[in-house]
């Protein structure tokens, strides 16, 4: 077993309950049997779940419920009613998950197994941003650069409401296009996630993701995410290095499973390769039809060599758009507000191409990895050739971490990743034209 796969150390796991103004802390280090921590570029907030075994000496009942104020399990004695905080530090050989300054909140709890001696309690957790988001109602009008609007919304509804919610301004990428919109009483996350598909980083580079990692919130373009240098290299091999403590074993792919490698019919139905786009101008009553075709080398950046386009003889999807001509202007004048010709068909193509290959892998726990990072994966070549063995030149290469789960048990720690890839091959292509 690799060192990083060994049991991790719970340096601190404390459940904090505010009971009638009194802060009650319950230490869960010896009670935790399983902890799962989740990040995803498709989720605006972090989630987690925690399984604990309680034998009944965890907390004291309040006088309101029990005049004798006996001790009991946290499920009843605390009691768990949601909104409790969980502060924790989990350390593995490669790094640590430290949530002491920004604790997660209890969403709910279930008691799946209970007898007279003990009970198992499953807590589901979320980051504070999710709670603040639910309390947010965006009303104002926002305009100009979409990245700036995202920063303003996050500052107004999350950052200013809590000291523990983080925002690194560098993680909110500016867009090349501007967009005027009103909040329409929607929540902050709903608005920002919708803005992602309307944002462009540069020409032919539409599509952003809004997500939270252990470092805070991110609003980044697909091209920015995939063009970052890989943070780690992982190898798929049937053999382990001799020495158990060899760090090389910490970067082995324990298992991998190809969940998806293209889905041509779905891609055609989504208009990925050739779409017809109809635009109607409600001021001039002008109707415009444009065909958007994905051809080889169309992607500005890709994770592997250029993505290939199948031969498509006709458009496979029609997008209808009513142009926004100065709807939110103060005067009656006004030009196109974020013309969908610049982003819509391109974004639909870009998101679909990115998720054309999905691979699930398990690796020894690496708490340094985050959703939105890229890693290099090397898979063994399967060949009867007597030439030198090496890596599979098609499957191996750079992958984007879409979903991430750090899984901790009393005997092992692993990280499960869902990786995405838009193209094949070992080498990255950058189309600067």
């Amino acid at each position, binding site marked *: 077993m690799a060192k990083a796969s060994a049991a991790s150390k719970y340096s601190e796991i404390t459940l904090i309950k505010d009971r009638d103004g009194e802060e009650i802390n319950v230490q869960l280090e010896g009670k935790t049997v399983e902890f799962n921590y989740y990040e995803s570029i498709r989720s605006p907030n972090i989630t987690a779940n925690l399984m604990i075994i309680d034998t009944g000496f965890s907390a004291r009942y309040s006088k309101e419920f029990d005049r004798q104020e006996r001790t009991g399990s946290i499920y009843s004695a605390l009691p768990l009613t949601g909104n409790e905080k969980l502060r924790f530090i989990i350390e593995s050989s490669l790094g640590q998950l430290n949530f002491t300054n920004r604790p997660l909140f209890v969403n709910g709890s279930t008691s799946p197994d209970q007898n007279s001696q003990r009970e198992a309690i499953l807590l589901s957790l979320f980051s504070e941003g999710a709670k603040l988001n639910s309390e*947010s*109602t965006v*009303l*104002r*009008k926002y305009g100009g650069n979409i990245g700036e609007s995202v920063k303003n919304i996050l500052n107004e509804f999350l950052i200013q409401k809590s000291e523990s919610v983080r925002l690194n301004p560098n993680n909110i990428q500016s867009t090349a296009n501007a967009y005027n*919109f*009103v*909040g*329409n*009483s*929607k*929540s902050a996350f709903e608005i920002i996630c*919708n803005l992602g598909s309307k944002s462009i980083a540069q020409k032919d580079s539409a599509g952003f993701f809004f997500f939270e990692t252990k470092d805070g919130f991110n609003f980044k373009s697909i091209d920015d995410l995939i063009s970052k240098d890989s943070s780690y290299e992982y190898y798929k091999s049937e053999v382990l290095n001799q020495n158990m403590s060899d760090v090389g074993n910490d970067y082995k792919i324990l298992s991998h499973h190809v969940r998806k490698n293209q889905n041509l019919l779905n891609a055609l139905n989504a208009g990925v390769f050739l779409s017809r786009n109809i635009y109607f101008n*409600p*001021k001039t009553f002008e109707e415009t039809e444009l065909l958007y075709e994905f051809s080889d080398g169309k992607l500005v950046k890709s994770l592997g060599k250029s993505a290939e386009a199948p031969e498509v003889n006709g458009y496979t999807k029609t997008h209808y*758009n*009513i142009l*926004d*001509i*100065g*709807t*939110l*202007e*103060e*005067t*009656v*004048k006004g030009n196109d507000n974020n013309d969908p010709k610049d982003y819509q068909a391109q974004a639909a193509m870009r998101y679909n191409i990115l998720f054309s290959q999905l691979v699930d892998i398990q690796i020894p726990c690496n708490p340094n990895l985050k959703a939105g990072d890229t890693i290099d994966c090397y898979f063994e070549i399967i060949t009867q050739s007597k030439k030198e063995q090496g890596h599979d030149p098609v499957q191996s290469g750079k992958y984007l971490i879409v979903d991430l789960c750090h899984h901790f048990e009393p005997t092992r720690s692993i990280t499960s990743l869902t990786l995405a890839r838009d193209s094949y091959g070992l080498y990255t292509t950058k189309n600067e034209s």
Partner: protein
Amino acid sequence: MKSASLPQGFFLGQIPPNWNEYVRASSWQDAHNNRVKVRIPGKHSKSGEIPDKDLPWAIVEQSTSSGNLNGSSVGLWGGEWVTGYFLDKDEQIPVITGVLGVNTIEDEKLDASIGGSTQFKPVKRFNGFVAKLYQMRGGSKPKESAGMDKETIKKATKGMGEGSKSDAELQEMFNNPNMRRSDPEELEREQLARIRSLPEPTGDVIDLSDTEPETRTLAQIQADSAAREQRIINQIGEEEYYRRQRERLNR
């Protein structure tokens, strides 16, 4: 925050005072056509967090009777409650389909927004800026009152009883207010008197054998009839003519 009231994509909203294209457009070239701003409860704030100026311009859907054959202005001025739907998934482009009937009993009503919002309170029917020349600014004032010139009259009467009246006679006829617009009551009295002066029917059969046979074609008859109709209209006015026609048909 989710709201569950009207069907998805539909809305009920109020038009703020002073925010229609009649009063806001400096030139009709800039305007779309009859747009108004709309404040929607549940989407836009009651208070001035989103002031009137930041509200979306709504396109106003009109009935088919406002097509190219007719064309008409919308009657939305400010304060009305309207229903509509959004043209886009993100609910940023509203379209108004109708206006809710209003009880005009005067109560405490606003004539302008307070702090950038009507706060969804009732608004006076005659609110906001007074529109110059009713709708749009632009164009100089006419120097003289509208009237028909000789050329227009000639064109209008071309082919109708040509030669029966000279141009001078026609001009005089149109300048004479009694000729152009006879008093309808007086005309009616004259008509009644003519009917009363007719002899009582004797019961004799009228012999039409010695009358002159009709030699005109159907087209000529229709043309003569149309010319006669036009002469009557010119004399008593179009409105009065059709009123009489309706009255005759009703009888």
